[in-house]
Every structure is written in C-alpha cells, then in structure tokens.
C-alpha cells in the first residue's frame, strides 16, 4: 500500500515530464527514477533579489521541492556538496529558432520579376502567404542535439521557439534544452503569438514595402474580427480561424530598430495589444519615445564591432553616427534599465553564443546592474512568456532548471559546471576538476630539474615547462579527474619524447613514465605557489569614462537638445507677408508660443525674447514642398493597382539627414507622397521638418491626402516586357480602375451607413472593415483629398470627368506638365496644380512639357505650386519658384506664393500656414538676400517658434563634428590596438526616393 502511494505521488510529480511518455511502449524493463537530489552548502541565487549563502536546493522528479537555508533532506536523496560553488536559475531564450526548420528566403533576383498576385500556399488558407497564423512551432519542432548542447553550454535551459518567417508567424512553443525527445522537452505548445513586418519567404508580390506590411497586418486583424463575428458563415478561412485563436496569447513582435518599435507599438495600440517587442539594440537613441509606448522589449546583445579606421582613406566611409553607435551601444541595456523599460535579453543575432557573456559583462561595465542583468535573462523572460509558474527562478514548485557555477555568473572567470534541466544533469565542465594552477618544482629522474607553470582558466589550464630563461616547453597534457598525462620533447633539436602519467596527491603531482630512450622514470611536481590573479582594472578604464552625448536624431548633424519654441523678435526686416499688405519694408515680427503674434514697426521685445536683427534681410514663410519623398523608408507599394490602404505615416524616417539639409534651404513643411507606380497609391504624410523629433511629432494628422497616378508609370510602360501582368496597361484601363474602385467604395460606404442605421445590430453582421475602401470612401465623402501624378492632357481631363460623375473634386494634380493645355478645364473643376519649374524630355509623356506651364495655369485661375519630388531640388525651391519669373513673367510676389501660400492652400493648411500674419504658425525663414535670388540662403529657419536651422550655429556644429569624429577615430584605433575585433567600414546610403522608384531600377535619367 505504501508503495502504491509513492507511485501516485511520483506520477503527479512527473506531470509534465513523463506523462507525455506514458503512452509509449518500453523496450525492456521500466526505468522510472525519482531523481531526488539535494545540493548543499552552495550560494543559491534564488532570484535577482534573493541569495542564500550556504543554501540547500532539493529537487525531485524534475521539480524544485524545497530551497532554503536549512532544508530537511529526505532519505533516498543523493546529496551533492557544493561548497564554494553557486547555483543560479538557468537562462530562458525568448527569441529562438531552435528546433525550427530552416527558413530559406529566396534571394530576390536582380532585376524585376513577374508579379505573383495570388498566394501559392495550398489549402483553405488566407489570401496572403505572409499571414500564417496557422503555423505552429510545436508541430514543426524537432530537438537538435548539437544546437541544444551549444545553448546549454552557455547557460540556457529553456527557449521560446518560433519559425521566423512572415508577418503573422503563428504560435511559439516553450521547450527545454534537455537532451530528451520532443515529447519530454515541450513544455507548452501554444505559448505565444508572433508577428513582424518582414514578409519572409513569401513569394507573393504584395506586400512589396514596409507600409504595405503594416496595412496587411492591420487588415488581417480586422478580417479576423469580421470572421469571428459572422464572416465564418460566408467564407472558410483556416488562417483567420487560427488568427482568432492566437490573439489572446502573449504576442511578440520582431523589429529591427528604434523606429520599428514605435511602429509596432502603434499597431498594438490600434488593436489593444501590448506587444513584447524584439528590438534592434539602438533604442537608447530614442529612449523617451520608446518608454512612452509602454512596450516591453527583447533586446539583442549584439554590439557593433570596432570600425577599422586604420587606413585614413577607409575611415572616411564611417559616419559619426556609426562611430557613436559603436561607442554607446554597450550602454543600451543600462539605458533601458535606467528608463524603467521592462526588457529581456536575447542571444539572437550572435554568431557565437559565447559572445553573449562577453557582451553582457560589457553591458554591466557600461552601467547595467547585475540584478537587472540576471532579471533580464531569467525572471523577465519567464514573465514575458507567461511561464513564471515554471521558470525564471528557483522557487518551490518550479522546474529544476538551474546552473552550477564556480562563482558569480557575470564574472569573467566564472565557469558553468553543470546545467540541470528538468532535474537532469548536463555536464559542461567537470565539477570536481581540481584547480592545478600554480608553480611547481618539476623533476623527472634522469633529466635536469625544471619548473612547471600551470596558468590560464580553471577549465582551460595552460601548461609550461621551464628549464631556464631561454628554454620553455609546452607539454601535451590531458587531465581527467585527478589523473594527468604529460608528454614533451626536452630538446627541440633532437627528436625524442618523454611520456609521463601521474596523479594528484594533496597539492602535488607525481607518477611514472619513460624517457625517450625507453628508460623508466618516476617524476614529481611539488607545489610551490598559487597563481597570482591578473588584474582586470586596466580593461575597465577604456569603457565608460569619456562617453559622447546623444544626438537627436542620432546622426552627426543632429541636435544635442531638441529645439524648443522661443519668444523671438525679428527687427527691421523686409517681410513677405503673402497677404494684402504685400512685401513690407522695415518691419518687426514677434513670435510667441509657436505663433506669429504681431507685425509692426518698432515692436518692443518682451522679457527673455531673443532679438534678431533683420536689417537688410528678408523674412518669409517657410517653404512648403507639396511633393516630397524625403524622410521615408519606402515609397511605393506597387503590388496592386490600388493600394489606398497603405499609409506613408507608417514609414516616416525622422533620422533622414535630408530633413536638416532642407531646413538649410528654408523648407519647413513637406507632403511625403506615395510613389506613382499604381493608379491609386497610398495615403500621404504631411510633416513639419522638426529635426530631432520622432515620426509622430513630425506628422500633421489633420492633412488627409492620397496619391493617385496616371500615365506611363501606372501602365508600366518603361519597365520592360516583364511588366505586362498587372492591369492596366493603357490609359483606357486606368480610367476603368478608377471607376471600378470608386463604385466599390460607394457600395461599401452605403453598406456601412445601412448597418449603422440599424436599430438592432445584434442580429446583423457588420460589413467587413476594408482599409482600402475606407480610404476611397473618405474621398467620396470629401474627408480625404487626391494629389494625382499626371502628365498629358487626355488623362488629366479623364480624371476630372471621373470625379465629376461621382460628385467629388480632384484636389491637386502634381507634375501636371501638360496642365497648360487644359488649364481652363482645371480652373472650372477647381483643381490645383503642383508642378516642376522646368522639367522635361526624360520620357515620352513629357516631351511637350514647358517651363511656362505654371504661368499659363496661374493666369487661367488655377492655384499653382512649385514642388520638388527630389531631395536635392527641395533645398532650393526658392530658386525654382524664381523660374516662373524667368519663364512666363510671373510677379515676384506671386512667384513666392507658389512655394508657400499656394501649397498651403492645396494642403488645406492655409489657416495655419502660408502667410506672415498674426495667429498663424511661426514657421519662418530669415534670408540673407532676396528670397528668389540664387544668392539667398537662410540665416534662420524656425518652425513654431523653435529654431531648427541657424547658419552660425551650423558652422560651429561642423567644427564640433569634425572634432568629435577625430576623437572617435582615435578611440577606435586604440580599441583595435587593444585587440578588439574590427569590421571593415562600409558606407550605407539610403535610397533617395523619387516617385517612380520601385526597386531601384529606374534608369539614370528617368526622374520624377
């Protein structure tokens, strides 16, 4: 009877471990064992806050039974004395592909390939290959003994694994790294849900851009919701069904950089999900914004290698931002801890897993506390994976997953002896290996006396025999427990090896052997003195002492502090008001609280105001670029003829140096447009160029625009014969794309109206939320406005007719190079024009483009702006405006409006922007010369009263930058000299986008 009870208890205890195996037949006698061990006299680190000196850990059946200073050890327990040793909970890796099938990403070929419009995945799944909620790590999982051994060796005991493939990646599984079959190590099957914005191995063309990925993921959430609420009666969709099942799991989102974190958090906010976000390790650069998202992070410990700047030619490739990142990145975990952002650390991205410890120690040197470090590799990951009940600390009832180490886990000479997983021992280093390190008197009968020096690490000792100052021999040695063998060649010149075997006796070694001629010889090594520990103080000095400062954004020409609104009085300037007063001389302008507060003569400066002398200078509004592609990470989502669902606001790159360069050209506001690859492009982002702020602070969300396009790009005329798949291929087809989409949008809008009008919604199924049709319906409802890329008169006319027939207006035609041919029709439709000053001849549809276009249209009553579509041209849009004077004789005052007031009107922002008038935003430029002149440049450019460009400060900034650069190069040189691994410099130039760029294949001259 007693025996029976015991068995039952055993069964219960084995609940996770052996129940899975209960159904398996045994080959031979049953071999169940209780696995009852007690570890005594150890320093037990129970969790980051609790350490027991001389503690006892009692485990049984793979679980912790008891841990404490005095634990009653039951009979039948094998006791291990760990005097002087440490016990730590083992590590949990959250971002692992351990045991997952290899994801083979098909290299995207050079050149364009034919479009794949539909999914190639077989089965009743969703429409897009990158959305795979049905994927299950638990089903794909196969233990890999080689990889698990490598992970165990470095201290990991468990991992949350998932296939790193696609935008929705299905569920992850928690597995232990024990050397056992899958059934035994799989702790939880549907442990987590995984997301990213990387389409992975999907061969489908959509999404072809980052903003496309965002739109697709958002749509998947909405589709799943619709599916749950009634859609399942309409269609079978295993993907959506699976999506609804995984939504409630802990959700992990993989990103690659600081802006990615903000982007993922935004998506989460929309759907009420707090993602645990895998970061890129650069979040220290935007720590406030990251903190504000409230997200938890999984942070890689990958630090940039020292840039190899030894060759001065090569060194020029390295940017100050890269040098600074190299300098500051090891401080990233400390910065996160300081900011109070919850984070776990991951080894993902490290080729050599042992580097994890090297880098973690570095992070500690840079200010991360050991408690935080331990938390980030044990308790926090367990909490993130909702596995706290089983993992993360050495509490009673949790799995017996722990490490036995020689000392402090984070010290450089720590040795992991054993890694116990689910109560099973995995030996990493021999726990009982004696510490032989020291100096010995070594004598072999028949040879001259020598001394034996054993140095190196405890688990990797190095041996040297010293005969005298000049003769030093490295013997071949092997140690096993207390047994040792040595063989060496006493005289390098004469062949012949002395071969010895021996054992440890007290602190001495002795044994037998034979000389090279076969003479038997006994030997002894008498312990003389212990190894003197090397100091690590010198190493510490290089790290944290002279750290540079952060920059906003994190590029060489960034700001040390973000500019703030000031009270500013500009005295005695020539002011281009863009109002009825026209250009007024000797006028003062007062700026307060981000607004223009007063214009007049001899205004008094309020206390604390910055006074700027404008004598001989010109004060104007900041330039507004109606058509820009700067500060974007992508520009075209060209996979479909309509991609109204994509938003440029998802891909704003606040770190683009072109923002600063354009401030230096007087630009303060830009409309970041989608490209012109398809008839209906994405939603624009109108931004203010607040250099230093994060994307959300640049955006003006009230400006709701969308890009349309006509002509050669949307019909893919210049992309070669491979681009003959997508509809439309002619201007005839383009018209029908518009009709088709708008009619669908109208039906969609009507169905929502009908649904919203229902008294009893409970019995009805809501229409499926469609992000694409949402945007198009907004156009029909006059809540969103079109900026349409256009060239020839026929298509311009066509779109106006389409709009007329559907009772809305086209807001703006951009490029509009043949607008002059239908200027009368445009004026009566009420559409504006945003054009180039003088572009032509780069393709067929611009062969009749003329620089008089702006003048002809303006005189017909069309609101005309001059835009850039080009990061270079945008920094001298004042000169482009001047060309309307040169060609077509527009007055200078009106020419100036074409880059300020008129684009403000086209963007419906003229109540805030576009003229120098009390109450409007203080987005102002003080020019050193007539603003339309080639000789003009800004002295100051301000946005909302904050000075973002100051010519004199810029000159000083340049000097400081050069200084910092040379200091960092010196630092990198000494780091290399100190033995740090280095990387050959590689410059990376982000793409300069134009609206035709699909994938970088635009020919040299085809611009626009």
């Amino acid at each position, binding site marked *: 009877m007693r025996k029976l009870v015991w068995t039952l208890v055993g069964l219960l205890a084995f609940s996770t471990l052996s129940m899975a195996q209960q159904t398996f037949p045994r080959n031979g006698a049953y071999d169940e064992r209780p696995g009852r061990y007690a570890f005594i006299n150890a320093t037990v680190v129970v969790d980051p806050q609790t350490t027991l000196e001389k503690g006892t850990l009692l485990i049984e059946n793979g679980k912790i039974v008891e841990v404490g200073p005095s634990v009653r050890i039951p009979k039948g327990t094998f006791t291990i004395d760990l005097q002087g040793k440490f016990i730590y909970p083992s590590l949990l890796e959250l971002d692992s592909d351990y045991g997952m099938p290899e994801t083979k990403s098909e*290299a*995207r070929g050079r050149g364009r390939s034919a479009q794949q419009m539909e999914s190639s995945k077989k089965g009743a799944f969703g429409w897009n290959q990158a959305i795979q909620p049905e994927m299950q790590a638990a089903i794909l999982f196969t233990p890999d003994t080689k990889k698990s051994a490598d992970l165990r060796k470095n201290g990991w005991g468990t991992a949350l694994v998932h296939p790193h493939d696609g935008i929705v990646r299905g569920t992850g599984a928690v597995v232990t790294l024990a050397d056992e079959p899958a059934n035994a190590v799989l702790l939880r099957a549907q442990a987590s849900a995984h997301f990213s914005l990387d389409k992975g191995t999907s061969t489908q063309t959509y999404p072809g851009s980052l903003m496309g990925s965002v739109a697709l993921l958002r749509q998947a959430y909405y589709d799943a919701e619709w599916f749950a609420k009634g859609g399942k009666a309409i269609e079978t969709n295993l993907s959506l069904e699976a999506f609804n099942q995984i939504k409630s799991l802990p959700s992990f989102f993989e990103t690659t950089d600081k802006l990615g974190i903000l982007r993922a958090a935004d998506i989460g906010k929309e759907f009420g999900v707090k993602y645990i976000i895998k970061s890129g390790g650069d979040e220290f650069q935007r720590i406030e914004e990251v903190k504000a998202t409230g997200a938890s992070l999984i942070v890689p410990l990958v630090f940039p290698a020292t840039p190899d700047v030894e060759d001065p*030619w090569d060194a020029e*490739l390295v*940017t100050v*931002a890269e040098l600074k990142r190299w300098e500051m990145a090891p401080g990233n975990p400390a910065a996160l801890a300081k900011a109070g952002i919850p984070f776990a650390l991951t080894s993902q991205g490290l080729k050599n897993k042992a580097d994890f410890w090297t880098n973690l120690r570095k992070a500690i040197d840079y200010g991360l506390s050991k408690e935080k470090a331990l938390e980030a590799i044990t308790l926090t990951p367990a909490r993130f994976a909702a596995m706290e009940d089983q993992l993360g600390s050495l509490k009673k009832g949790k799995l017996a997953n722990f490490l036995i180490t020689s000392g402090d886990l984070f010290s450089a000479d720590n040795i992991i002896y054993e890694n116990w997983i689910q109560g099973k021992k995995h030996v990493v280093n021999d726990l009982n290996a004696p510490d032989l390190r020291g100096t010995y008197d070594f004598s072999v009968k028949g040879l001259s006396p020598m001394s034996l020096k054993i140095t190196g690490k405890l688990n990797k000792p190095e041996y040297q025999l010293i005969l005298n100052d000049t003769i030093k021999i490295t013997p071949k040695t092997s140690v096993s427990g207390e047994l040792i063998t040595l063989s060496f060649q006493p005289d390098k010149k004469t062949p012949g090896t002395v071969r010895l075997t021996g054992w440890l006796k007290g602190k001495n070694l002795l044994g037998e052997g034979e000389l090279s001629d076969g003479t038997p010889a006994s030997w002894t090594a008498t312990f003389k003195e212990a190894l003197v520990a090397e100091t690590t103080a010198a190493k510490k000095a290089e790290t944290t002492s002279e750290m540079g400062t952060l920059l906003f954004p994190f*590029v*060489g*020409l960034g700001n040390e502090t973000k500019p703030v609104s000031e009270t500013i009085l500009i005295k005695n300037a020539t002011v281009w008001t863009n109002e009825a007063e026209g250009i007024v001389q000797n006028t003062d302008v007062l700026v307060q609280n981000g607004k223009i507060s007063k214009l007049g003569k001899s205004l008094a400066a309020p206390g604390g105001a910055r006074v700027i002398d404008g004598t001989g200078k010109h004060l104007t509004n900041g330039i507004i670029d109606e058509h820009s592609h700067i500060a974007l990470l992508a520009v075209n989502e060209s996979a479909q003829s309509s991609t109204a669902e994509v938003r440029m606001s998802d891909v704003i790159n606040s770190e683009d*140096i*072109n923002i*600063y*360069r354009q401030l*230096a050209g007087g630009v303060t506001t830009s409309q970041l447009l989608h490209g012109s690859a398809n008839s209906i492009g994405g939603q624009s982002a109108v931004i203010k160029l607040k250099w230093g702020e994060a994307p959300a602070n640049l955006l003006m969300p009230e400006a709701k625009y969308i890009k349309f396009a006509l002509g*050669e790009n949307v019909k893919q005329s210049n992309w070669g014969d491979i681009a003959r798949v997508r509809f439309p291929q002619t201007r005839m087809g383009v018209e029908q794309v518009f009709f088709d989409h708008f009619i669908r949008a109208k039906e969609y809008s009507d169905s929502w109206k009908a649904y919203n009008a229902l008294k009893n919604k409970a019995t009805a199924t809501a229409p499926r939320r469609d992000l694409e049709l949402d945007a198009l319906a907004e156009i029909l409802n006059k809540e969103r406005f079109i900026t349409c890329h256009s060239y020839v008169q026929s298509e311009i006319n066509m779109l106006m007719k389409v709009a007329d027939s559907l009772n809305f207006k086209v807001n703006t035609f951009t490029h509009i190079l043949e607008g*002059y*041919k239908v*200027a*009368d029709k445009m004026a009566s439709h009420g559409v504006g024009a945003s054009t180039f000053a*003088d572009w*032509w*001849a*780069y*393709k*067929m549809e611009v062969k*009749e483009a*003329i*620089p*008089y276009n702006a003048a*002809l249209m303006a*005189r*017909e009553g069309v609101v005309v702006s001059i835009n850039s579509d080009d*990061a*270079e*041209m945008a920094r001298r849009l004042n*000169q482009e405006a001047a*060309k309307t004077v*040169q060609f*077509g004789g527009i007055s*200078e005052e009106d020419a100036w409006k074409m880059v300020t007031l008129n684009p403000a009107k086209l963007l419906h922002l003229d109540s805030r922007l576009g003229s120098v008038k009390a109450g409007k935003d203080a987005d102002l430029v003080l020019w050193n010369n*007539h603003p*339309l*002149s*080639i*000789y*003009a*440049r800004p002295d100051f450019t301000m946005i909302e009263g904050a000075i973002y460009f100051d010519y004199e400060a*810029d000159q000083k900034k340049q000097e400081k*930058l050069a200084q910092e*650069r040379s200091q960092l190069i010196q630092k990198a040189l000494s780091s290399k000299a100190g033995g740090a691994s280095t990387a*050959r*410099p590689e*410059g*990376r*130039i*982000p793409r*300069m986008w134009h609206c035709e760029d699909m994938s970088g294949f635009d*020919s*040299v*001259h085809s611009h626009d």
Partner: protein
Amino acid sequence: MKKIIFGLLALCGLQAQAQNPAPALPQAKSIVLTGATIHVGNGQVIANGVVAFDKGIITAIGGPATTVDRTNAEVIDLSGKHIFPGIIAMGSTIGIQEIASVRATLDFEEIGDMNPHVRALIAYNTDSEVIPTLRSSGILLAQAVPQGGFISGSSSVFNTDGWNWEDAVLKKDDGIWLSWPAYLSRSFNYDDYSITVKKNEKRADIIATFETFFADAKAYADVENPSPVNLRLAAMKGLFAGTQNLYVRADYAKDILEAVKFAQKFGIKKVVISGGSEALKVADFLKENQVSVVLGALHRLPGRQDDDVYAVYELPAKLHKAGVKVAISYDDEWWRVRNLPFQAGSATAFGTMTSEEALAFLTLNPAQIMGIDAQVGSLEKGKQATLLVSKGDLLDMRGNVVEHAFIKGAKINLDDKQKRLYQKYKEKYGQE
C-alpha cells in the same frame, strides 16, 4: 483636287511651324552693341561698354569711349542690359540624346569597355529640339561626350547652332574620356533598396587592364604604319602627341591622385579631371601638376551624411582660391544644362569670390581647358563674336532672360519648341 492640294499645303505649313528655327546665316553686316554692362569672361567687367564685331570676329571692345567704325554697322543700344560671352557646357550629352526613356533617341553609349574610337562628333544631332531651349539660357557652346564603359570615346565641341555636325563643330575630337574605377564601389541591396559603399575589390584588376591598354596604345603610336590596323589603339594617338585631352572621370581624392600619376607615367600631357568631388583634398597636387578640374553640377546633395550641408556649393571657390583651374559642367545631362549658369550663381553665393570669377568657370576656363580659348571663352578683340545679351544677371534666375545671342557674329533665332507651345496656348486663352 484643289482641296487635296490645299490640305497638303496646310500640312506643310504646320510642319514648318513645328520645326526648329533655321540656323543663322553668317554675319553679313558689322554690328556694334553699346550701353550694356559687359562681362568679359576673364574676370573683368566693363560698365557702359561697347563691343563691335564683323565677319564673326570681335573688332573692338571697351568702355564708352572706345572708337569703332559705325559706317554700315547695325548699332544696337543695350542700356541697362548685360553682355556675356557664350556659356560653354562641358561634359554634356547635348545633341546625342533626346528623350531619356526612348532608346531610339539615345546615341551616347556604345557596347564594350574600351571604345576610344567612337566619336560623339558624327552622332551630334543639330536638329534636336532640346538645343534651341539651351540657347535661351545662354548656352552657346557644348561639348558632347560619349558615356559608358571605361574608355567611353571621344568628345567634340559644338556651337549650339548649325545645319549639320560639320557645320556646327568648333573643335573635333578634343579629347578621350576615361572612367577611373572608383576607390569605393557601390552595390545595391535588394532587401532595403539602400546602397552599400565599400572598397572596390575589382579596382586593381581594372587598372591593370588600363596599364596594358595604354602601353599597347603608346607602342602603337610610335609606329608610322602599324599593321594590323587597330582602330581602338589608333584613336589614342592624340593623347601621346599632346593634341588631345585625356578626361578622367574621378571623384575620390585617391582616384584623382592615381589617375593623374597614371597619365603622367604614359607621357600624356593634357590631363583633365572630370567630377572631382574630393578635388579639394588634393588641391596642392593638382595645382602643382597643372591639372584642371571640371566639376559636376553644384545642385546636388553632399556625398556624405556628415558633410557640411553647403559643401558642394562651396567647393568651386575653394578650389579656385587654392590655385586650381576650375570649370563647372552640368554633368552628363542634356536639357538640364539650361541651368548651368545658375551653378556659377551658387558658387558665387557660397564662395568668397566675385560673380565674374565664377563666370570664368563657364567661359574662359573651359575654353582654355579644351584648347579653344583663341576663338571663344572671353570677349576680346580677335576672338569669335559668340556672345549674348541678357536682361539681367545671367547667373541668377531673376535676371537670366536672354534677349539676343550671336554665334560667330551670326544673329541666332531664339525661338524654340517650348516658346512656340507657350505662344499657342497664350493665344488659346487670350492671355498676354
């Protein structure tokens, strides 16, 4: 029948209207321009100046007191206007491309790496509709340059008016164009569409092929009647004889040094650097070796993230002050070259020099570099009367309105396709 004939006539009429204006007839009568500010092109300015020319050649130039023979001369009073020498566009594809996306109109790039024998000369299309638009911004001389490969071919210099290439050409085959392999190469990343810049691993191999090619060409040039005949090597002869320039496209400082040393090694006397973004770093070397630099358009972005935002604009003045002969081109462009005068404007705005010094980057300096300064490049007695009259400062959009232009004294018709379309639609809308 009558109707058909009428129809045909109408068609002809229309067609005639859509054609470029006829090239100017040779100067028949002496012309005297008075009262204008004359920008000589060599750094000098003459207020209220007089310039007289006959049979295409300047016969007198100077201040208001200059004595000129006005008998039978057409005297034009240009008070308040500005006279400039014809602007010279180096390094362009003017006349050898028309519409970038239409392959049939592109005649600037051949197959193969080493093509010194292909000549822009014979492809230069005087009937290009782009060319008349350039004259209206002051471009009266253009160097048409083959592109592509390592040795792209030979360039020629043209007047931007003429019936055919023989008629338009001012200097045939003035130089051979070599693209030096860049120290840093760029490769495209298909994942994020960015460009990686790193050390060009193929560079040494390419330079080795140059060594062989130039050695063979030099040996070939030594033989009076070489057999077998090799067109490529034969085309290189002028480089060793000193009758042709070697234009080397190089931007990085290291490339510039290496290319010049390479040319010197082969006894090539006239080396010109085209591009030269980093020329300032080796300015002393360039000065010492008397190597001129043809910079690209200033209206471009700085090359590196950390560069001074105005670095590109400041370069010409700095290089000039360091004693290097500078010309400014508008890269290998064609229609955009009409913005060439503004490049000198920007160079003035961001440099410590006068706009007259900057003007020389577009006039006298390119003429000297190409060896045509005896004929053009500045307004001096005995030189060709290739000049223009602008309403204001030619280097600034606010003043660049070309009212008259003369090439070799012949009065140019300043009409162009764009002006005709302007006129057509002004009439449609009744604008004026």
